[in-house]
């Protein structure tokens, strides 16, 4: 495309438009970093919560393990800002995927913050939207293991309704490993 005032025929214009739009749209970058970071953080928090509530002499301090999510948020924001600047193109699907997870985080945060008011029945509540976001991410990235991960979260979420609050954290930890970390590692190896 050397010249700037060359006249185009209508058909040439349409062909050009189609070709350019095809090159720009429809691809999400599929970065596994967030899946691995949050997968490990949430798995450690879940297992930590389970261990401290069940076996430690100070179960009241168990919720403190969730403080781990604060540095994870900081890392996420710094990484996200750097990543946004280093991508040649940000597709609409990248934006949809990003806002899906931000919306999901907003949806589940009250359950974490006010878990005590619902007797820490937190996992029964949060695993369902996490399943939805994981499943939809799988659709956006066209990546089957994430869709299956979403189904794992839904199954774990339903199971949690039948368990006591402490055991729910054990289920939550395993659900994260199977539904989030495992697909995250598969995503990383498939996109390398």
């Amino acid at each position: 495309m050397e010249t700037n005032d060359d006249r185009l025929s209508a058909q040439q214009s349409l062909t050009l438009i189609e070709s350019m739009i095809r090159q720009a749209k429809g691809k999400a970058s599929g970065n596994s970093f967030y899946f691995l970071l949050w997968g490990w953080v949430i798995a450690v928090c879940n297992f930590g919560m389970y261990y401290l509530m069940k076996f430690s002499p100070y179960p009241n301090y168990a919720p403190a393990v969730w403080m781990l999510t604060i540095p994870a948020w900081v890392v996420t924001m710094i990484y996200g800002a750097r990543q946004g600047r280093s991508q040649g193109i940000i597709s609409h699907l990248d934006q949809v995927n990003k806002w899906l997870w931000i919306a999901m985080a907003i949806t589940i945060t009250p359950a974490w913050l006010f878990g005590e008011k619902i007797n820490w029945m937190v996992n029964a509540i949060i695993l369902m939207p996490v399943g939805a976001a994981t499943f939809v991410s799988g659709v956006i990235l066209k990546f089957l293991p994430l869709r299956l991960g979403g189904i794992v979260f839904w199954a774990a979420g339903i199971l949690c309704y039948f368990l006591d609050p402490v055991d729910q954290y054990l289920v939550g930890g395993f659900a994260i490993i199977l539904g989030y970390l495992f697909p995250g590692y598969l995503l990383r190896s498939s996109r390398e």
Partner: protein
Amino acid sequence: MLKELDPLLHSQLRLGVMSLLMGAESAEFTFLKEKTNATAGNLSVQLDKLSEAGYITIEKTFRGKKPLTRCRITRKGIKAFEEYVQALKGYIK
């Protein structure tokens, strides 16, 4: 009667840039340059024309010490592009 095609869009490079930006949230100068096969100087001039018309916004920042230019289509640009495509359909029929 056939509608007149927007002269700002009816040029190969500017139309190429606008089409790329229609399909993306935003794109870097280097990406646009690679996809359009334009020279940096020519692309820069055409981006300025689109920006002056309010069809795109150009954000200039730095990545480390290197300058980074990112372009994004505006609402006005989207409207102009859609009208251009509508007018184009008239020519094809």
